């Protein structure tokens, strides 16, 4: 079982770094996109709200494999040409963004309306109300769900392996073809994922502890 990592250290390392890279890039992209769509969803402009709701409903009810399938195999046929890594980022972030949007929206919904009314009656402008009253409170409520969504995203990123992206799960096929026992190959890959997800979950717990306030 140990020879699997001894012999394939470089390959596993590449895969591990690939998954990390995918995590960071998709994490940032889906946070940005999710925030943008959440902004649409809570805006006072009906068409933007409809768009936000439609996006969330559509992507939350679409299997991620189908999105990967449509992006990685369908985009080239429409002459949208990107690298496999970029395809993976597009597929994973559009999917995760729908969930992030909902986490942000329900975070905003936890802020009592009196908070904003008090801020406005003190003469605060929209920007001040938003940045000093609403978002600090909404952010605290949204951090735990967003954190678990990002952890789920890491697990979901394994699907990218089937669409030619260099990442951890993808290394398994090379190693199994080279004659290593699939059991140990997959055990080591699972450990690799556990390292990332458990680290993230520990970081998240620390962050939550730091942000926790008594309401």
């Amino acid at each position, binding site marked *: 079982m140990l020879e699997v990592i001894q012999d394939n250290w470089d390959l596993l390392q590449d895969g591990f770094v690939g998954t990390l890279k995918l995590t960071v890039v998709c994490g940032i992209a889906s946070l940005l996109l999710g925030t943008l769509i959440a902004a649409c969803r*809570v805006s*006072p*402009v*009906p*068409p*933007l*709200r409809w768009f936000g709701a439609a996006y969330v409903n*559509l992507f*939350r*009810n*679409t*299997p991620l*494999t*189908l999105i990967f*399938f*449509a992006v990685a*195999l*369908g985009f080239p*046929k*429409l*002459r949208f040409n990107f690298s496999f890594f970029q395809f993976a980022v597009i597929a994973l972030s559009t999917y995760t963004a729908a*969930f992030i949007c909902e986490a942000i929206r329900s975070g905003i*919904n936890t*802020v009592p*309306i009196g908070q*904003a*009314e008090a801020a*406005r009656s003190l003469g605060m402008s*929209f920007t001040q109300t*938003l940045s000093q009253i*609403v978002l600090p409170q909404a952010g605290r409520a949204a951090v*735990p769900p967003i*954190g*678990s*969504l*990002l*952890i*789920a*995203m890491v*697990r*979901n*990123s*394994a699907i990218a392996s*089937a669409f030619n992206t260099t990442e951890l*799960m993808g290394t*398994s096929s090379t190693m*199994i073809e080279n004659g290593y*026992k*699939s*059991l140990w190959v*997959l055990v080591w*890959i*699972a450990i690799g*994922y556990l390292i990332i997800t458990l680290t993230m*979950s520990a970081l*998240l*717990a620390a962050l*939550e*502890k730091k942000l*926790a306030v008594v309401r």
Partner: protein
Amino acid sequence: MSREASVLFDVPGPKARRRNLIIGVVGTLALAAFLVFVIMRFEDTGQFESAKWDPFQYTGVQQFIFDGLKATLKAFALAAVFSIVLGAFLAAGRLSDHKIVRWASTTFVTFFRAMPLLVLIFMLYLVPGSQGWWKWDPMWPLVVGLTIYNGTVQAENIRAGILAVPKGQSEAAYALGMRKTQVMTMILVPQGIRTMLPTIISQVVVTLKDTSLGFLITYPELLAAAKLIGGYQDYHMPFIPVTIIVGTIYVAMCMILSAFATWLERRLRTSRKGKPIAVQPPRPAALSLDGAGV
């Protein structure tokens, strides 16, 4: 919402209404422009040619998609039922009075929730064959993998529903001389089920979505059917049309189930028998490996 104040916005006055209208028009135009661009690209690459859509009138192709749908639904039905059963057992284990049972179920739940489902499915798919233990149809690794993963999530849903029942209920039942099994089956589960049912169904939607992972282990489900039809030379490789068709089937199925969960939640909330008990948010220090619905 635009007519009333929210935490973000006050009721808009005439100036704000005008501004919102302008933003609305500009936003709609931008989205429409993007849509037109995509449709033009579809047109340019010949996705609307009748030759690419004709094959879907053949009964053979329709039958092929239908067979894929049947395979998807079969795996889904098995996995959904098994995962709820496993979830009930794991929840009972986590609520057990015996420390060993509690510890074992908690470890099981934590471990399988932290691992990517795909890795689990590949283990079940590849390992028994390569170790020479047994051979099985690719449907079973998919069903067993989905059962284990979703079972751990369902266990948490069921446990949360049971824990949400006020403590006085079980205390009263014990005081009446009920046994533990009686308290669980006659007092806690009937009350908790109203709280847990919507989340259980939402997780069933996730199970349905995840059956598409069967595509990666060559289980002949909907996506596999789509790939095969989409690469067929004689049909002018209708990959985009078939993806649109299969995608619509998937999204429609998931949306119907999601809508059912929402409807049920609303119905239970406004039921004459009173509201279901609200689930307490988990403690912040708890290991957060869930991501509801992902």
